[in-house]
């Protein structure tokens, strides 16, 4: 069939026309082989411009359209829609960029710019001559979401998706949802009680009819692709029949074995069979076999089984696997603190009165091990002088981590303030590099701490902390006065850096979600696509993506949820068909494509002994096409033949 290509040269006002002789371009190209129609117009993207394209398609029965205008990122979609409206296949409408890549960069040399524009358009004409009519790829959509991580971000995402009418499977590895936010005392800058605002959300998500909550569970395997994931979840053996258990608490009460409480950050003990905290959701215990006398001493003990009125204890219980089909996955795996043991210069992990910021949260919390009174771990005394250290591990590329953990300035300000509310005669010191208060009401909060609560802010770093005569001696420097400072404090609180949750790295690797060098999940675009992963169907929320505070985590979670809801709005998921294709007749089955594909889209067919491309997953990156030794892998509408002719047109003459 003879090609009948239309060329539409846009002036873009004077953006193009001032530098490129658009009339000459249109005239010269009218005579190029395959071109059936050629014209120019002031604003091709305007309604009259688009109508000109539509009319010409019908009038000249065009088989291909080239709009020579701005970058395809701006108006490719516009003109493809126009082509479709006129009865053309949209993938036969191409853009030739003669603005950003020609007129804007060659001002002052009209002849040369015009020649380049003509050449640039010829390249796209060569492409269009061989463009095939393609249909968008449609894949069925399972409107059910998996949310990994039951902290505030995961809970918010699950609730928003569920409230949009879709089913959600929420997986949490700990025995209760709530995450770190449930551990916090009050929240900055409003001093709301963290648990008071958190627990209603925990209950709401657990009781939501659209939400399946799996605690003490981990994602074991994920296969498939957007709209069609298969997820295998491992429900860890809790040795408690949690379906029958009423959470009466008798087993925990009678359990003789003790272990450090994770929820209280090691400041208190919990029994081996335990619910992490009184407001836990679900409020049912799990048995920690690594501390249980029954498991450690070959069946001696068994007290929990004896006292359980409903016979829920099952020492033989095994991990159980459940499978779900889901269409989208939200990863909200949260953060950990940088290990305190890494802060050797502060005696981290060595001195009991040098504590982590989360330990201090537990001390301040009314539900904490000290009932909300600040008492130092070594002897239970009320500390009269407390030093708070920002940037412990953060902003220290030489020895620790280079990035700012973002929340420490604010939570340490809150700590110092709450300490002062708690111990009126006490003195709080905060060593800081800069006090970063970027947030609504944050600067006012900091000012209040310094001015109303007499928190002493010292600009400088602490070099060393050591124990001396029952005190923690803090050596630092005040860089504003240039003086060395020594404080004989009763306690020091380290504002440790936030790092990604330790378990999240394996999960991210399994899901093939990119991470930065510190293990934070990478978003698809740092500004414009902050809640999506590059691979379709994966969304990220909360501190797993980078250090952030509660409102930011909630906002990002809601953002991810709305993306999921939009994805689920259609029964099918449509994708661009500009992807790889493998010619089964020439494929030798060497599997190079399978090994290079970053998306697991290339698959080996054991029966036919050839490779094929899973259309729903292929991103059209071209890796397999470059790697294929037999030339069997090709990109649709970017075939070798097309590229050769395009390059020839570019170099001709």
């Amino acid at each position, binding site marked *: 069939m003879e090609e009948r290509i239309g060329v539409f040269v846009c002036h873009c006002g004077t953006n193009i026309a001032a530098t490129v002789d658009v009339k000459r371009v249109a005239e010269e190209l009218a005579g190029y082989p395959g071109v059936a129609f050629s014209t120019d117009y002031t604003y091709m993207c305007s309604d009259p411009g688009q109508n000109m394209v539509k009319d010409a398609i019908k009038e000249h029965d065009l088989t291909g359209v080239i709009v020579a205008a701005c970058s395809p990122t701006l108006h490719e979609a516009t003109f493809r829609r126009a082509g479709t409206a006129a009865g053309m296949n949209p993938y036969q409408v191409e853009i030739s960029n003669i603005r950003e890549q020609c007129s804007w960069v060659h001002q002052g040399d009209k002849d040369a710019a015009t020649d380049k524009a003509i050449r640039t358009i010829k390249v796209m004409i060569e492409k269009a001559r061989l463009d095939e009519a393609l249909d968008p790829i449609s894949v069925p959509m399972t409107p059910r979401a998996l949310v990994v991580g039951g902290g505030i971000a995961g809970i918010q995402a699950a609730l928003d998706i569920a409230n949009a009418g879709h089913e959600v499977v929420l997986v949490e590895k700990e025995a209760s949802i709530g995450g770190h936010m449930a551990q916090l005392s009050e929240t900055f800058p409003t001093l709301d009680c963290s648990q008071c605002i958190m627990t209603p959300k925990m209950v709401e998500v657990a009781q939501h009819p659209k939400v399946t909550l799996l605690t003490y569970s981990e994602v074991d395997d994920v296969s498939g692709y957007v709209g069609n994931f298969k997820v295998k979840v491992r429900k860890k053996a809790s040795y408690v029949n949690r379906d029958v258990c009423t959470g009466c608490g008798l087993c925990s009460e009678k359990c003789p074995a003790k272990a450090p409480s994770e929820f209280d950050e090691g400041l208190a003990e919990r029994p081996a069979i335990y619910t992490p905290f009184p407001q836990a959701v679900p409020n049912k215990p799990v048995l920690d076999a690594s501390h249980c006398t029954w498991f450690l001493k070959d069946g001696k003990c068994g007290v929990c089984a004896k006292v359980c009125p409903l016979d829920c204890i099952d020492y033989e219980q095994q991990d159980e696997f459940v499978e779900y089909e889901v269409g989208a996955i939200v990863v909200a795996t949260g953060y950990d603190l940088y290990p305190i043991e890494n802060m*050797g*210069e502060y005696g981290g992990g*060595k001195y009991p009165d040098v504590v982590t910021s989360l330990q201090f949260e537990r001390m301040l919390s009314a539900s904490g091990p000290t009932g909300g009174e600040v008492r130092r771990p070594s002897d239970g005394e009320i500390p009269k002088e407390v030093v708070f250290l920002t940037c412990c591990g953060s902003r220290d590329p030489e020895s620790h981590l280079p990035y700012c953990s973002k929340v420490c300035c604010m939570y340490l300000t809150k700590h110092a303030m709450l300490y002062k509310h708690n111990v009126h005669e006490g003195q709080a010191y905060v060593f800081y590099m800069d006090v970063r208060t970027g947030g609504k009401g944050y600067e006012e909060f900091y000012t209040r701490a310094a001015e109303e609560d007499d928190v002493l802010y010292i600009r400088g770093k602490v070099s060393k902390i*050591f*124990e*001396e005569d029952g005190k923690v*001696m803090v050596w630092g420097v005040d860089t504003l006065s240039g003086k060395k400072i020594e404080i004989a404090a009763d306690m020091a609180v380290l504002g440790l850096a936030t790092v990604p949750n330790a378990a999240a790295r394996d999960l991210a690797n399994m899901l093939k979600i990119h991470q930065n060098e510190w293990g934070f999940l990478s978003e698809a675009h740092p500004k414009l696509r902050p809640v999506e992963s590059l691979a379709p169907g994966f969304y990220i929320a909360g501190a797993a993506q980078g250090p952030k505070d509660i409102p930011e985590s909630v906002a990002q979670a809601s953002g991810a949820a709305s993306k999921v809801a939009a994805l689920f709005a259609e029964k099918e998921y449509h994708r661009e068909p500009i992807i790889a294709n493998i010619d089964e007749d020439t494929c030798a089955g060497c599997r190079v494509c399978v090994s290079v594909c970053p998306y697991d889209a290339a698959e080996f067919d054991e029966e036919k002994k050839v490779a094929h491309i899973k259309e729903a997953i292929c991103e059209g990156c071209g890796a397999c096409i470059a790697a294929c030794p037999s030339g069997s892998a090709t990109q649709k509408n970017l075939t070798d033949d097309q590229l050769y002719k395009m390059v020839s047109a570019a170099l001709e003459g």
Partner: protein
Amino acid sequence: MKIPYYPGCTLHERARDFDVSAKECAKALGVELEELPIWTCCGAVYPLVTDSVMDVLAGVRNLSYASRLGDKVVTLCSFCYNVLKRSNNVMRGNKDKRDKANLFLRADTEARERIPSYTHEDYEGQVEVLHYIEMLRDVVGYDRVAEAVTKKLEGLKVAPYYGCMLLRPAKEMKFDDPEQPTIFEEFLEALGCDVVDFPMKTECCGGFQVVKDEDLAASCSQNVVVSAVKRDADVIVTTCPLCRYNLDRHQDKMAEEVKGFRKLPVIYFTQLLGIALGVDKEHLDFSDNTVDPRPVLAEKSLI
């Protein structure tokens, strides 16, 4: 087993007690420290300038000599160890400086006369610089040291003092955790001592500042010694002649300034090792100490 040994100037002058005790202990552990046939000063301090090759030449030259004898070189003084190790890092990592340094080494006629095996091969940083205590841990093994102990130092409360030069800069020295090191403590445990953990074990003794500003060095040393006294140590052990000097010589002044100060002997770790291994006491000379360690050692029935 023979291991090339670089003593450094101080070990042949003020710190003979360190040199002799170290060699005898090595012998008792089956190691012969083979002193380099010729050697010079290491340079004494690693240069802070980064654009000059002259400043690392002294260290490099000694390393080049060592390379003719073996693949390791052991040293004792913390300063020598610091300079040699960092000079070696330059030879390993900086081709430009390595090439220039080798031009100088080629002109070294004395070496050819004095070391029979000396050839014109360029030095590429292949020698591994070991501190004596690393040799004990990694070549001999602390378990073998413990087995060789004939007199357990039970009841002796020893404060191990690292100073700075072994540990810093940490990325270059790669000796131990610069904030909470343990190599010294593990060594003392092998000898059966009661280890006294004191927070000033990695603070500076004052170093060469003693030449220019004795008061400054004295105040640095005081900080270290007082911390060990407070924790009821019987002795401080060091790995460095200059640390020994600073901590030991300023104690009269400390006694004047600090109420309730108790003088604390400062000895070399090899002297303590010598006692534990039963080395002949003629090799364990404590006469150069300002604060005599012999009374406390005798009190614990160790000498």
